[in-house]
């Protein structure tokens, strides 16, 4: 439901001539309980990333899930990489069919690197949804939970300034080298920054009252030109 109201509130943004794709750059919702926005595509993709998990109980007749063993059942103690949504359903705080471990990019060693200098790390490579996934991992009762939470926040704060700076000032220069290293959440912020600069510039030139072709039409026109 929240996504419905969000995108309808984006409707007025056509008026500023800013691409209406505001709906597409929609900020990922704060996934407080790890559940996230039910309809959010980013949230669904983020929860597909795999986490190392160990089975604490024997699961009958599902041995085929484990590529390494040919048994009919998954034995207790078997280790497997499960997508986060599955791990969550099986190893939440109350259920304990599996126990999960932190994926590599969230472990101590990686957190140390992030603390040393978060700006040099390629977060996109670390799972395109680094923050969303990290927040979801907090759902599990893991020993290093509070450390992870702290690390996520610090990383974000340290990188945010640079992202804002770049999105506001490198308007006409090539920033692909920079943006490829951002995680999806950061990219959203980056685009918001760029859009606001564009809107500001338009206003300064006294062009903000001009009606423009809708976003879809403009894109189609561009594509025709490319053909």
């Amino acid at each position, binding site marked *: 439901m929240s996504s419905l109201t969000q995108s309808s509130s984006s409707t007025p943004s056509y*008026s500023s001539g800013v691409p209406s794709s505001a*709906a597409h750059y929609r900020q990922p919702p704060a996934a407080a309980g790890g559940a996230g926005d039910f309809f959010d*595509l980013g949230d669904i993709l983020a929860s*597909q990333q795999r986490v190392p998990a160990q089975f604490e109980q024997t*699961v009958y007749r599902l041995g085929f899930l484990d590529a390494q063993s040919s048994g009919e059942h998954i034995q207790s103690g078997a280790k497997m990489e499960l997508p986060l949504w599955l791990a969550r359903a*099986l190893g939440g705080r109350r259920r304990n069919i599996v126990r999960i471990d932190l994926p590599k990019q969230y472990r101590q060693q990686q957190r140390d690197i992030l603390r040393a200098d978060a700006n040099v790390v390629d977060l996109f490579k670390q799972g395109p949804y680094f923050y969303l996934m990290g927040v979801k991992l907090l759902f599990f009762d893991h020993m290093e939970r509070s450390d992870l939470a702290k690390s996520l926040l610090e990383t974000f704060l340290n990188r945010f300034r640079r992202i804002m700076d770049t999105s506001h000032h490198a308007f006409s220069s090539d920033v692909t080298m920079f943006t490829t290293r951002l995680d999806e959440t950061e990219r959203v912020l980056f685009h918001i920054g760029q859009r606001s600069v564009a809107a500001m510039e338009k206003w300064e030139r006294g062009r903000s009252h001009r009606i423009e072709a*809708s976003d*879809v039409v403009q*894109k*189609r026109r561009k594509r025709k030109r490319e053909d």
Partner: protein
Amino acid sequence: MTRTVNILDLGARCLGEKALELVRELKRSQDGNLPPYNEDGIRQVVEEMRALFEQNQLEVRATTDGERGLLSGIQLRHACLERNQRCLLAYVHHRMTRIRDYRWQTGSVLPPSFRLSLCEQEIQWFTHYNRSLATYMRSIAPTGLDLTQHLQPPKSLLVEVRCLEDYGEFEMEDGTVVLLHKNTQHYLPRSQCEPLIRQGVLEHIH
């Protein structure tokens, strides 16, 4: 029984993977047009879900009959069912949002290229949405009020526009007819040409 297991086996390595593929497809196309409605993909997901559900029914029945140790497997399959359901709903919902946005951006007629990628139900939905929007807009003022107009506050009644394509004759509300030829310039009432500007037929010059 064996048939069910076979279908499950196909998806075993990647339970929920097909549903995810649908979501990926939408995510990839965010900046462009809407991809065609993936009927085949949806059918496969639904089939996978049916297989999971039947297997769960069997095992639930076995459990109530006294067999033990099946519960964790049931839970696992149930999680897959919910996941698939979420992916499917997100797929349909996201498409619906985009079709609705389209209505506000370019008006009540779908361009053929866009129409081709919709399924029967989506076209139906669009027609219904159009109808209720029109009914609502007629009801809010004695003469009706077009909410899709003046998305930004108008500063003048007339605007200068240039034609970007041969559109043909355009009849205005007061009955005058203008011939919109490519590369001609006109001075027209803003409210009349706003939709055409949005559709990319006219360009707002001043």
